């Protein structure tokens, strides 16, 4: 077969090339068609959806949290305000080396493992370029350190936000309560819209009770942001409505007098203005620094407060239920007068003890232990109140019966919540036959009436209830729901009067006589209070047993464990002619009423004159 020499055939090559060009153009057009289709589908078919996406990229609806209302005392002293607090945040996208930056920050400011842990959790839920908080409440010094090093730390920002602050700290802890970070349960219960952008809510006390007023109304703004989340301009704005400022009846000087007088003892003081029902002082000691709770208390601090034997978190003024002891005697006397069972002149023999007819058990008068005998052979009402004669009231109680006792005492507010504008109020116990059957499923024993008639046994009252009862005595029967809130945005809050306790004027006068004698009488149980006094104070001492004392056993204060000592109580109002303050005081394990009485003098002095020169009797 002959070999052909292959030669280049230009025409054939050119033909093939033309065919390939046609093929290439076809492919190019087809692929350009695909590209065009893609752009058409993005820009025309799906235009709306991408436009929305682009707008939501750019335009952010930002909640504008309202400024929380401030709280003042009656003199305009700030009790709760909002302070700028500085937090340290990190924008991860802008940090070149994330781990190195964290390490560096740890060297600059204290950052604990728990900070890091919470930070990592927040980091998971962020959107790109969002500043994620790492540390809250930077100190001045920490801010300065961060400012100096800022040029080396891109992506690290220090933000300011308003944070609740309690300038008086522990002094008003139980009177105000506090705000704290919204927890999961609260987030579920609160109005999601109203609380957008708000991280704190009233947890307890006035802060919780008036949460709605203090919070205000949320505002919104539409802002244009760049990809880094920086706001470039505000497109629309609906301003938030700031929370209202509250002025309370509390008087910082009276509060301080009560707080200082209680000192390191456990107890409570409630002072009330009988004319208005306004609470002038509400102290429960020990207290705690409410500022600790605002941004999440550390578990160490919290367990210290929770586990303390002194239960500082417990608001004794409204939650503490104590046997009122002899402080109910004026009310008992009033019941006797009103029921006609006694007159101011009628007397009861007092051998130092009392015995129910047909029963050998002796109900002792407290005086028996001291004098070995009664207050006097015959005791009338004035003496019974002034010297706190138990025998007189044992007899009255027996004759009155427990049910009528409850009937006469309940208008003073005992056995029911006072309705004070704070949280966690307890109602105490005003026992009756029905009460015992319903609660304990037992029948009433006559001996229990005897205990009840001097405020022991089942009877329990909170210091708030005793203060309200004292206020009823002071105003001769006027009854009002006690209030902490005095003014809202400068407008006075008027509390409607409740149906008054109707009683004869002369009966009130008889009671007053006895109560004045307590302080001013020679044999009054709190007569040492009269030293240097420039006004007339009506009062009644009380002692509440913490543990039962066996028949014939002798209570020796020195020998009893400190926490088993008697509680000291005292109620008082002044000036007796036209009372402007009524107080109820309890000093836990104070040993007796003398632990409580000086506090009343200091508190009332301060209310009337602005200060107190009174010195505790040695």
């Amino acid at each position, binding site marked *: 077969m002959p070999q052909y020499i292959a030669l280049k055939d230009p025409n054939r090559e050119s033909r093939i090339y033309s065919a390939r060009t046609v093929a290439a153009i076809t492919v190019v057009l087809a692929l350009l068609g695909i590209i065009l289709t893609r752009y058409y589908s993005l820009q025309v078919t799906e235009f709306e959806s991408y436009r929305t*996406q682009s707008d939501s990229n750019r335009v952010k609806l930002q909640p504008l949290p309202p400024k929380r209302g401030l709280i003042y005392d009656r003199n305009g002293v700030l009790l709760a305000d909002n302070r700028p607090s500085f937090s340290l945040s990190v924008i991860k996208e802008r940090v070149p080396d994330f781990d190195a930056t964290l390490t560096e920050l740890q060297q600059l400011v204290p950052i604990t493992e728990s900070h890091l842990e919470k930070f990592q959790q927040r980091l998971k839920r962020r959107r790109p370029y969002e500043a994620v908080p790492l540390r809250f409440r930077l100190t001045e010094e920490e801010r300065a350190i961060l400012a100096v090093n800022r040029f080396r730390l891109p992506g690290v920002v220090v933000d300011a936000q308003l944070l609740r602050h309690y300038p008086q700290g522990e002094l008003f802890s139980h009177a105000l309560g506090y705000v704290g970070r919204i927890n999961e349960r609260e987030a579920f219960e609160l109005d999601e819209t109203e609380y957008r952008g708000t991280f704190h809510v009233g947890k307890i006390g006035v802060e919780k009770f008036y949460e709605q007023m203090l919070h205000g109304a949320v505002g919104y703004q539409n802002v244009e942001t*760049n990809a880094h989340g920086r706001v470039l301009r505000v497109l629309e704005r609906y301003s938030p409505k700031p929370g209202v400022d509250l002025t309370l009846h509390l008087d910082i000087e009276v509060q301080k007098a009560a707080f200082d007088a209680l000192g390191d003892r456990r107890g409570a003081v409630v002072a009330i203005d009988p004319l208005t029902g306004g609470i002038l002082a509400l102290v429960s000691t020990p207290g705690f620094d409410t500022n600790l709770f605002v941004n999440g208390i550390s578990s160490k601090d919290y367990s210290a407060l929770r586990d303390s034997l002194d239960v500082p978190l417990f608001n004794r003024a409204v939650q503490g239920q104590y046997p009122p002891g002899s402080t109910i005697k004026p009310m008992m006397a009033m019941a006797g007068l009103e029921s006609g069972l006694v007159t101011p002149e009628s007397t009861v023999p007092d051998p130092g003890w009392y015995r129910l007819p047909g029963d050998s058990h002796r109900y002792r008068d407290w005086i028996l232990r001291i004098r070995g005998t009664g207050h006097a052979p015959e005791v009338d009402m004035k003496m019974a109140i002034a010297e706190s004669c138990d025998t007189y009231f044992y007899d009255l109680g027996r004759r009155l019966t427990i049910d009528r006792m409850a009937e006469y005492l309940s208008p003073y507010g005992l056995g029911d919540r006072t309705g004070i504008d704070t949280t966690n109020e307890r109602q105490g116990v005003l026992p009756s036959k029905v009460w015992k059957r319903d609660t304990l499923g037992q029948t009433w024993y006559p001996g229990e009436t005897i205990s009840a008639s001097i405020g022991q046994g089942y009877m329990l009252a909170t210091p708030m209830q005793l203060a309200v009862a004292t206020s009823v005595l002071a105003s001769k029967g006027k009854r009002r729901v006690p209030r902490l809130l005095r003014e809202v945005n400068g407008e006075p809050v008027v509390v409607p009067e409740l149906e008054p306790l109707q009683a004869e004027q002369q009966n009130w006068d008889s009671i007053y006589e006895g109560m004045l004698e307590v302080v001013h009488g020679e044999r009054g149980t709190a007569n040492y209070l009269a030293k240097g006094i420039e006004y007339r104070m009506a009062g009644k001492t009380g002692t509440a047993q913490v543990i039962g004392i066996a028949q014939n056993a002798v209570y020796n204060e020195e020998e009893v464990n400190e926490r088993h000592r008697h509680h000291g109580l005292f109620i008082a109002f002044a000036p007796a002619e036209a009372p402007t303050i009524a107080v109820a005081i309890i000093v836990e394990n104070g040993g007796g009423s003398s632990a409580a009485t000086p506090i009343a003098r200091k508190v009332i002095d301060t209310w009337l004159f602005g200060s107190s020169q009174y010195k505790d009797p040695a």
Partner: protein
Amino acid sequence: MGDYVRQMPHQGSADLARPPSTASRLHIDIPLLLLLMALTTYGLFVLYSASGQNMGAVVRQGRYFAVGYVILILGAQVSLQRYTRWAPWLYLAGVATLVAVMFFGVGAKGAQRWLQIGGFRFQPSEIMKLVVPIAVAWYLSDRILPPRFKYVLVSLALVVVPAGLILQQPDLGTSLLIAASGLFVLFMAGIGWRYIFGAMVLAVASAWPAWMFVFKDYQKQRILTMLNPESDKLGAGWNIIQSKTAIGSGGWEGKGWMTGTQSQLDFLPESHTDFIIAVLAEEFGLRGVLFLLSLYLLILLRGFWIGLHAQTSFGRMMAGSLTLTFFVYIFVNMGMVAGLLPVVGVPLPLVSAGGTSVVTLMAGFGILMAVSTEKRMVVH
């Protein structure tokens, strides 16, 4: 055997009769030049907006274009014979520098792509985008076309060596472009369809082993991200989500020059370089995209026209390959920004900011102009 000069009977005589124009004396293809000028001007407008109204960036890019046009005109002056004469040496030098990069190269982000000589830094792989097609076209220009199997194999070897060297730098985008430019020469040379379809089948069949053994993790990640950008919203997917949003929200009319919110507010990354088409689409809308595609299409058609009228098989193959490579830039870039293709570092030709690709592309258009004006010179 020298190049055969083809005479077109009806046209040739007219050409002979007419004195050569200034343009043809300067080896300039006027329609192509006008189209390129329109494209680069359009590109500068988009860049001004995409760079955040940075006049400096526009001036810098304008300078690159100026350099590019100078290179284009210089490249057009070189005769095709000279290109063929230089072809083997250019190729050997190119491969040598690629090997040098492997040992002495410098780079960033884990890729070794640059060669530093004194204060001058250059990227040998960029030059290979032209050298590889020149070498393959040179090798095939002497052969009878369509080339026989062994010539096809040699041509493939010419492509695979530099492409492989670049792939291991690693630079997938450039490697693909270089491979494509060489293979386009083979395609235009008329290799049998059975090779082409065979290669396609082989490519599909090797996808699995390539995925398992060849692709690096970041390359796999890019492919996965393209398939489902939502899977990595904050990371790699962010770019694609934002660029699709930019394109889509532009609609038909666009948001207006310098008022694209995606690009002006920094949502769009790489907005003035690889993702510049998203700025264009957002601000000028589909209308602007159509205008750009029209310019590109006219340039491509002019390139094919030059190829069809080329006098030598070298010129033909070069014209076809350069035109198709230009198209690959367009397709890959526009496809990746719109989420059709994985993200590879391929700029939008003559629009994206950057000097390297401008120089290479303009040099390529210089060769194309040399091809288009070859005929008349030879005849003259």
